[in-house]
């Protein structure tokens, strides 16, 4: 049940909004004895500012950061490295297929003379080399990316804690100047 004074305050706020008046001043004129705390409590500007900052962060880069935060660093890096490995393997298979088509004439003409074992070893060697480079680089890049998103999240959580503190103050569990 909404207390009647809150309804009154809401009404005044609405009227002020429509007539483009300053709400706090109007309240001061209408009922000078009203507890200033009550007027302020209706819309806590600091809280709204903080919540807006949080919401903007969540909407923009935070979406990615929060997604990353569901993984441990090692899990995330491993997953990305695995994806890279699969992509590199498929691409390499395509490359080998193109190579075979390119040298098709040669292969058909010398089908019996080719040392397939040597060829296979060479291709495997190149594959492993390429793979190693990609894996190392992607592991590095993705762990840097993770660390960066962590840093941004740290700030986000500080803001969340501050908001939490505001709620505690509002509900009267702690004093405003008390430590969090």
């Amino acid at each position, binding site marked *: 049940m909404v207390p009647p004074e809150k309804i009154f305050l809401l009404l005044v706020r609405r009227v002020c909004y429509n007539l483009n008046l300053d709400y706090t001043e109007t309240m001061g004129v209408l009922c000078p004895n009203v507890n200033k705390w009550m007027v302020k409590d209706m819309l806590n500007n600091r809280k709204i500012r903080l*919540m807006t900052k949080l919401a903007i962060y969540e909407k923009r880069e935070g979406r990615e950061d929060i997604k990353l935060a*569901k993984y441990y*660093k090692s899990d995330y890096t491993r997953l990305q490295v695995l994806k890279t490995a699969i992509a590199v393997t498929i691409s390499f298979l395509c490359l080998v297929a193109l190579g075979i088509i390119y040298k098709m004439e040669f292969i058909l003409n010398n089908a019996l003379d080719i040392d397939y074992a040597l060829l296979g070893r060479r291709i495997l060697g190149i594959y492993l080399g390429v793979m190693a480079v990609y894996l190392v680089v992607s592991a590095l890049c993705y762990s840097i990316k993770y660390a960066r998103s962590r*840093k941004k999240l740290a700030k986000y959580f*500080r803001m969340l*804690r501050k908001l939490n503190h505001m709620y505690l103050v509002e509900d009267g569990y702690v004093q405003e100047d008390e*430590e969090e």
Partner: protein
Amino acid sequence: MITVLIEAREMLLKLYQKTRVVVNPVVKFILSWVVFAFINDSIGFDPRFTKTIVTLGLSAICAFTPGAVLVLCAMLLSLLHIYSVSIFMAVLLLMIFIILYGLMMRFSPKQAVAAVAIPVLAKYNLHYCVPILMGSVASPVTIMPTTCGVLIYYIMKIVKEASARQVEFDLDDVVQLYTDVFDAIIANKQMIIVAVVFALVIIAVWGLRKFSFDYSFEISIAAGVVVTIIGFLVADLKYDATVNIGTLIFMSVLSGFIAMICDYMKRILDYTAVERVQFEDDDYYYYVKAVPKVNISLKEIDIKHFNHHSRDGEDIDCEDEEDDGDAEDVTEDESPFDRLENDGKLLTRDDDDYVKAYRKSYDDEEDEKEDNGNLRYLPLNGDYDGYGSLQPDDEEDEGFVDGGFDEEPAPAVPEKRENPYMRKRNVTVEDEPGNSTRVFLNDDGDYEEDMTLDDEK
């Protein structure tokens, strides 16, 4: 004249702020349309896909989706066109696309548009601006999509010629066709030269951009232009690549200007973007429209910076100096916060202008009222734990993090770690003697209430 320009700019920005929701998709729609029209124009073999309705539909999809979708649509469209003439070439092209995606494009999906932009802009010889722009707004990873764009441009040329050949379903013919295409691709030195020069341009622009000397932004773009010109000239002399020197120089300079304008616009638009967010608490639903203050832009801000401290923050005095209103203490200590320059004049706390200098731009009265009397501190010395605050400290947080935060707990006394606030300029505001507050001016030039302070007390 200058005033008129500034006014015009502010008017445009305000207009953009208001109409951003409409303008962004429209711009994307037009760009997508240009891309699809270009594809239809150059390899529009299949009349079914060159119809206006198809282009319209594809552009409409791309207007509301990220840039990577545009790249995908462009690839599909060109595949379909090639498929209608030569099924073998379509297979070849598909494999090339898979290779390019798997080895290059997937690492920077946000900048994948570069792969499309280069072939399109190359028609007008403006593709030189792509690496300059990429270097100035993004990181060297964009070498990959840029290289992709160059490869796609040249390969598409070869594929287009090859697909005009009539081929029977005969192994010899098909193999011959593929062999010819591969020979043409491998023999194409220009492709490799362009890719290498573009990569160098990206590295040069990005590297210079990283430094923070005056005009580093303009200098980095100029360097990009110079590297482009020199790179192509050297390639021309050494490998006999066919480059028209006059066109090259003119177009490179023009591209430099275009890149500069784009970059400048991007920074301004990012900074002035209106955010609409909604959230709720126990009592209300909030629909907030956050409008950045356009007129407090980077150049015009009145606040004076001082103590532009170094990264390791050793020059910052962060001891517990309790502000007890003792003016002597303050002046004797000579803390770096105690004086600031105003119009070349050095002001101390005793000067009357000191207060004015800050008051000018510190207009958020609400904050001022609330913050008065609280001297705030920066957690600048070593004991700031950048990770510790991530530890979930109650159930709400735990639900959110889902799986815990820290793999390894942060060391009790961490070694020197980069402090996120290191790069911020901080400023002391004193409105009455003995009553001072520190606020932060972040890189965008607006205030930031320092959220860490209460945590660290």
